[in-house]
């Protein structure tokens, strides 16, 4: 019997699963595999979900009696500011980015995302700005107290007078989050527009992309 073996046409740049299937170390590495990145996103997001939930517990614990007695008012302001910021930029966006990363290439029949390294960079910015945001607890004057929308008359007051204060760190974290999300958006849009399996091209999406 002839010895048949299937060779890939072009050697893949990286093995998608180096090592055993349950090699946990790859989840802490700079992996470019979209499934690994998806799980990294989801796991990290759940960690910050707990952090944001802890802040919410403090808010509700404060509000259970009419008087402001559980925490100081500045702490309370910081709590609702960070609750909103953490829940949006460190839980909702990352967990949805993780689901999109995991599912979209599988659903459209692509081998990976369009830019795997960009994908990994976009993910690893999330823990970076998470740490930046949490570091505002150590900043002079404590974390930002301007609410998650940071409206100017409140947010540009800088009572501590320091260059590095809670509001500056908040702005840095949000700007980094924006850059990370833009990277992810470029990646996902390119993947969906350009990397669909051939059979998926004409049949289902003609009404938007013409003859894509």
């Amino acid at each position, binding site marked *: 019997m002839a010895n048949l073996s299937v060779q890939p046409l072009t050697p893949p740049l990286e093995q998608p699963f180096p090592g055993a299937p349950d090699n946990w170390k790859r989840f802490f590495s700079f992996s470019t595999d979209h*499934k690994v990145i998806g799980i990294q996103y989801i796991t990290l997001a759940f960690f910050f979900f707990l952090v944001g939930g802890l802040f919410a517990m403090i808010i509700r614990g404060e509000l259970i009696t009419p008087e402001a007695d559980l925490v100081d008012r500045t702490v309370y302001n910081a709590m609702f500011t960070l609750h909103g910021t953490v829940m949006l930029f460190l839980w909702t966006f990352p967990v949805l980015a993780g689901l999109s990363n995991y599912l979209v290439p599988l659903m459209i029949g692509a081998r990976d995302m369009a830019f795997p390294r960009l994908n990994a960079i976009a993910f690893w910015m999330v823990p970076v700005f998470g740490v930046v945001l949490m570091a505002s607890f150590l900043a002079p004057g404590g974390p930002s107290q301007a609410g998650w929308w940071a409206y100017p008359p409140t947010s540009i007051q800088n009572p501590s007078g320091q260059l590095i204060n809670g509001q500056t760190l908040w702005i840095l974290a949000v700007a980094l989050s924006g850059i990370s999300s*833009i990277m992810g958006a470029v990646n996902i849009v390119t993947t969906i527009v350009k990397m669909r399996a051939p059979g998926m091209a004409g049949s289902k999406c003609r009404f938007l992309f013409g003859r894509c």
Partner: protein
Amino acid sequence: MPIFVWTVLSAQIIQLFGLPALTAGAVMLLFDLTLGTSFFDPFKGGDPILFQHFFWFYSHPAVYVIILPIFGIFSELFPVYARKPLFGYKVVAISSIVIVILSAVVWVHHMFASGTPGWMRMLFMFSTMLIAVPTGVKVFAWVATIWGGKLRLTTAMLFALGGLVMFVFAGITGIMLAAVPIDIHVNNTYFVVGHFHYVIYGATVMGVYAALYHWFPKITGRMYYEGLGKLHFVLTFVGTNLNFFPMHPLGLQGMPRRVASYDPEFAFWNVIASLGAFCWGFRRCPSS
């Protein structure tokens, strides 16, 4: 193309055109804080309202960035657990794109009380209410998908159904908030907080849980415990509603948001809300 991919594409297109506005606003704010510029400082001739435009030009569409993939998850899950194809695939896909287009012209509804001129308020009230049309189309498509199907009430389906119910409630309060007179009345009260949390927790987090339970066997190769999952759903659904529903009567009575102390007349609903919050706060370890 699967409907989840359609919704993710729509959401990420919003990210592409919206996020630069937020980042630009944040950098200008940083300059105001550190370099002494005065983009937003009214005492030096800046305009604080400008920041609100920068902020909401992205941060309202951000809500659609969040909710659109959830629409996709609902559209993927209901056909599976009702054993019927999705009702109106093409319309659901088109309505996602319509939401993307409309989302670019609604941001001023966050600023009805910021001295916005009357004609602008009318315009944005109209465009905000228009959002309900593509969204309502989706809701009807899902209901028509479930209608007459052979339902299997697994944990994933329960989360999806719960998310749908809470999303409809959030949509109703959303329409109320879009109307300028009501918005002025409840501006900066807990009514807004309640509406927002029904969208974000009620619909989005429930949708994320539904997706995670649905694809958990695919991701991990193991099955979750159905009983624990259902317990998780019941605690989440009851606790969430206990927590966020009381915010609506509180807001209508006029309790402002972001205060650490309040009049004793508001105590009743606040106690219920806090107890509800603790009820699901403690169970929220990822039980999957």
